[in-house]
């Protein structure tokens, strides 16, 4: 942190919030609110005279509320820059000045009660999102009696209690009697791997954190008896297993089982727990002087705001989703945005540093190149035929299109376009063309597939990244699927236009399949949600026209699901066999009539 603060090429803005980011790769423009600290940070020497005289005492957030701080304070000892700031929500008041003692005491006259928030504008080529995470708070669900029993603490509170810089100066004690406990129990997976708390994922860091804590405890106080209650110990990193073995060798007992009931002995304030040891299948009871809840990590509370600022997507766990889990693990789906640390997923310090280094290297590569090469699959918009309805802007996952229907203006930033083609599929006026996936190109493919024996063909629209790759996996694994199914590749299933489906039916296709990525795998943030909406509308339309909706199917198939692709295609072939020649002819007739009606309406 000190190195960052002193680096000549790094402008560190602490106590600041990003309010708005506009632009795109190479041309980001950010508005940052630099909050008033009311203390001149360049002049402040952190002598501490102001904090000594300040009469306001509030709980210290850094010490988990176990000690206090003043209204004028340094957030934590290693803070950079090392200067004080005034917490105005707790200060007695500066307008009018109710106390003013800190300003009187400050010899260097660093305190300015009239300081105001500043808005700073920053131009940037790349954005790295390193917004961190929050720690699970066991209070709302009252996990393991945390709100009722004082001697039940979280792992964060334990850290402060045993730290030399903590509220007890490193003299470890339990909260009720401030005496050193003789027995300490650790409970794992609190707020992790549980649907009850809404966090079904593994928090990644808690097992090793507990192992480290037990070693610290045994190192400082070898006589303390420590037991760890766990579901699994996940010691998968370099040297982690060794650390786990050292903890066991130091006398820490590991019991596989999560306590079901915790009660408190009213006289001793000790905690009694009942647990089923799943290795011995026995119900066991233990008594502890103190219990430590190993709390998991959670997405930061302000993630929705950051998500909105940068048009990012999230995984079901609530963390930011990378562009590709294996091939682009530090890239956001938006070009020029990278992730570092727990904003993307829970990870330890080593993994965070690795990802941050990778993000910095990715940023450096792009910045030093000086230009960005885009794939030639972006959309083009014909402003002469555009009616400025704004549907394209509504469906674009990257906010590449901005439409003002009142002023009849459209702004399209091609550098933001990733080529999903959803805008093209949604445009009712044919004003949007996606390069290499134009309507005419697709119609030609449909025509070619249905030239001979159309009644035996199934047209399958498959997205490039998942379904088409799933078909490849199927073929690569020598899994047979009916040879009369014809695949038409699009970049995203969101590109599949209603017109294409109806065209295929009009040309005599008995079955049409629209296939794309599973929701979580969508390579274009959420473009495939629009695919589903479109298909659902089409089912209604087909039914209205007397055409069986079962003839249009929607399938999500990932690149790894070759077997699933095979099964889907085999089932669909059985369904195709049920479509009669009369049904196909009726469909062709109805859809031709509907098309003529639509043409007449246009005229």
């Amino acid at each position: 942190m000190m190195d960052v603060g002193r680096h000549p090429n790094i402008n560190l803005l602490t106590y600041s919030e990003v309010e708005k980011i506009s632009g795109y790769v190479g041309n980001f423009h950010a508005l940052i609110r630099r909050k008033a600290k009311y203390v001149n940070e360049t002049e402040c020497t952190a002598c501490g005279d102001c904090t000594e005289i300040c009469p306001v005492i509030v709980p210290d957030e850094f010490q988990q509320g176990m000690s206090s701080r003043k209204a004028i304070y340094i957030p934590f000892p290693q803070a950079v820059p090392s200067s004080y700031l005034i917490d105005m929500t707790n200060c007695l008041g500066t307008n009018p000045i109710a106390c003013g003692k800190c300003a009187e005491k400050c010899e260097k006259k660093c305190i300015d009660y009239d300081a105001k928030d500043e808005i700073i504008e920053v131009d940037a080529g790349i954005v790295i999102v390193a917004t961190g995470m929050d720690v699970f708070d066991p209070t709302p669900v009252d996990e393991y009696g945390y709100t009722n029993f004082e001697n039940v603490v979280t792992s964060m509170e334990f850290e402060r209690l045993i730290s030399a810089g903590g509220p007890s100066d490193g003299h470890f004690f339990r909260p009720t009697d401030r005496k050193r406990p003789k027995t300490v129990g650790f409970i794992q997976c609190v707020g992790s791997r549980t649907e009850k708390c809404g966090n079904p994922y593994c928090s990644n860091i808690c097992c090793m954190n507990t192992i480290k804590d037990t070693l610290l405890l045994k190192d400082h106080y070898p006589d303390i008896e420590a037991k760890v209650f766990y579901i699994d110990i996940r010691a998968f990193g370099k040297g982690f297993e060794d650390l786990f073995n050292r903890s066991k060798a130091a006398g820490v007992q590991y019991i596989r089982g999560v306590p079901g009931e915790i009660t408190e002995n009213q006289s001793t304030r000790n905690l009694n727990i009942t647990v089923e040891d799943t290795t011995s299948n026995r119900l066991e009871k233990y008594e502890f002087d103190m219990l430590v809840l190993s709390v998991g990590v959670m997405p930061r509370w302000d993630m929705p705001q950051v998500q909105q600022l940068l048009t990012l997507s999230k995984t079901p766990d609530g963390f930011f989703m990378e562009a590709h889990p294996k091939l682009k693990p530090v890239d956001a789906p938006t070009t020029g945005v990278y992730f570092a640390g727990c904003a993307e997923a829970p990870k330890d310090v080593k993994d965070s540093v690795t990802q941050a280094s990778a993000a910095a290297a990715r940023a450096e590569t792009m910045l030093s190149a000086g230009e960005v090469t885009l794939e030639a699959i972006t959309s083009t918009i014909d402003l002469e035929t555009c009616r400025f309805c704004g549907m394209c802007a509504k469906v674009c996952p990257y906010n590449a299109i901005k439409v003002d229907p009142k002023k009849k203006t459209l702004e399209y930033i091609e550098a933001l376009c990733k080529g999903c083609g959803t805008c093209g599929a949604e445009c009712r006026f044919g004003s949007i063309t996606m390069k290499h996936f134009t309507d005419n190109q697709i119609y030609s493919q449909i025509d070619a597939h249905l030239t001979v024996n159309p009644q035996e063909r199934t047209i399958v629209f498959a997205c490039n990244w998942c379904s088409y790759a799933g078909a490849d996996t199927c073929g690569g694994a020598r899994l047979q699927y009916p040879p009369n199914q014809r695949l038409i590749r699009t970049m995203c299933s969101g590109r599949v236009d209603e017109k294409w489906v109806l065209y295929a039916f009009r040309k005599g296709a008995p079955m049409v399949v629209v296939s794309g990525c599973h929701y979580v795998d969508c390579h274009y943030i959420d473009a495939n949600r629009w695919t589903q909406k479109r298909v659902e509308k089409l089912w209604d339309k087909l039914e209205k026209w007397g055409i069986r909706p079962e003839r249009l199917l929607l399938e999500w198939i990932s690149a790894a699901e070759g077997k699933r692709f095979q099964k889907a295609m085999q089932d669909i072939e059985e369904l195709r066999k049920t479509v009669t020649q009369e049904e196909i002819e009726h469909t062709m007739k109805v859809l031709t009539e509907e098309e003529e009606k639509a043409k007449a309406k246009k005229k």
Partner: protein
Amino acid sequence: MEEKDFKCLRCGAINKYPFEKGVMMERQCPKCGSNSIRLVKEKKTDQAKKEG
């Protein structure tokens, strides 16, 4: 979340799935694995009968 009847267009199985108006979600048929899951719409006469 409210649950409604949905029909699988591949195998015809009818199952209950969570449903919230305006919220898109991935649904998969437990029988055949298809994602062609269509909301079973109540006919107006059925609705009127329910309402008495």
